[in-house]
């Protein structure tokens, strides 16, 4: 027998079957935690956001639009809460996150440039752990709007349309942000690895 869909579980929950909600939590708590942890870089925040997101699902379940899918809705709630956290943090941190993308960057010129000119992988001399640290450092420095798209597309394999739903932007913007994110990552990662090797 096929497992019930998320939407069926939510419907059952609204009809009074409390075990269906627990199944939804068990199905998504881990993945949602990974998403928020990558997005915010903070495990305590990730735990909080997961709890808050499911709490909101619980309180707003009757307002769920049955024509939509549950998973993007859940991630939308979590992404909003994670963004609130990041806004509070950056307001006080004054980091150079205002390295705002120009129109040219937004259209993915870095990405195109890298594909035209990228050489061999620069990180071969680094150990796996150091590569992991470098990747994490570069992605954490990435502007929030690009990081969010990259994480949803690369690590969670969300369809473009679902990403558009989660972050509330048109499909074309999702694509251009993904290109910008990959371009940003490639450029900064290369520079970071080169600097590490020079040390």
């Amino acid at each position, binding site marked *: 027998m096929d497992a019930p869909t998320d939407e069926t579980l939510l419907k059952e929950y609204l009809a009074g079957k409390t075990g269906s*909600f*627990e199944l939804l*939590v*068990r199905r998504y*708590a*881990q993945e949602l*935690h*990974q998403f928020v*942890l*990558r997005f915010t870089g*903070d*495990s*305590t*925040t*990730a*735990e*909080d956001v*997961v*709890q808050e997101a*499911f*709490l909101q699902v*619980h*309180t707003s379940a009757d307002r769920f639009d049955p024509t939509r899918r549950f998973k993007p809705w859940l991630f939308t709630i979590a992404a909003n809460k994670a963004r609130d*956290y990041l806004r*509070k*943090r950056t307001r*006080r*941190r004054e980091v150079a996150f205002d390295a705002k993308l120009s129109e040219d960057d937004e259209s*993915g010129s870095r*990405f*195109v440039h*890298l*594909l035209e000119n*990228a050489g*061999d*992988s620069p*990180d071969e001399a680094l150990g*796996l752990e150091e*590569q*992991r640290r*470098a*990747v*994490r450092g570069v*992605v954490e420095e990435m502007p929030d709007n690009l990081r969010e798209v*990259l994480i949803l*597309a*690369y*690590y969670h*394999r969300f*369809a*473009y349309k679902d990403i558009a739903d989660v972050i509330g932007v048109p499909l074309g913007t999702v*694509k251009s942000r*993904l*290109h910008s994110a*990959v371009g940003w*990552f*490639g450029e900064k*990662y290369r520079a970071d690895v080169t600097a590490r090797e020079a040390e």
Partner: protein
Amino acid sequence: MGSMKRNLNELLLDLHLDRVSDEDRAWLEAELARDDAVREKSDRMGRLLQPLDHWNVAPAPGNLTDKVLMRIQEESVASNRGSELHLASGAEGGPGFFPFPRMRNVIAAAACVLLMVGVFVPGISELRYRSRRAACANNLGSIYRGLSTYRESYAGVVPFAGGADGNSWLPGCSKETPFASNSRHPYLLVKLELGPEMKHFVCPSDAHGAVMDSAGASRRGDFALAKNVSYDARNLSGGSPILRPVKTTAYIGDRNPLFVNAKFNESVDPTTTNSPAHRRRGQTILMLDGTAEFHNAPVYGPDGDNPWMIGQLTRYTGTESQMRADDAFLVPGLPVSDPDVINKMAR
């Protein structure tokens, strides 16, 4: 030409992210077989994305699902309380609602009630206990968020509100030693509005705890009363406070049982006694790496550090401070505006 390049790049990215349609995949595979330049570009794309595979993040804690469900249950209980009260008052109302019951019905109903109380009350009590414990860990998690923001802004040090050498952290220690409450330090997290709110400093299991009114918090230097802060924080009073502790040491946690009512209690064995906070079954401790866990004994970590003690010292006068960064020592927060603390300082 530019738009064709862009389209090819988009398609290659989709191919590497495994989100390309069958039709496009067939076209791309033909192009890759035919054109060396396309193949080279695809290889570059692979090399560009490959490092992202190295970024593994820690799995969610094993009890995350339970925490989520507990949290929801807690909120449901809180939101239903009003309607339960409403129903109860409604049931008392109507005339003839409960007309002349027979004695055997009364006895049967009473027996049912007693049975249900016997069966469910212990379970509910345990559920409440666990729910409070989870809420306590959430409080410490909120405090950690503020703490990490502070550390990002102040070169990795823990919040420090200042204090002269030789200050004591227990009031009335001696006439020569000025008292400086240790709760001034974590208070900086609310004063500077770094995230935690007043409610996060009151453990839900603390029967005497009271959330401080946050109006004017930014103008104060400490909590108003001792009951506004249920948690004991790492000692930063005394001589040479250690402001850069190691990540695996405690920062704040449930009350140290050695110091009850602002006095050192020498009859308590610090090696075995748990905090009074959670039925003395253990204590929730926030470490500087962000973990907030419940420990069944007053030791944690690979070295078995005891947050109630400095090294193996078992007697305290109120001027001691730990000498090693990996030796956490949690001391009570006793604001000087608390009348009890003022009395003790005067002695």
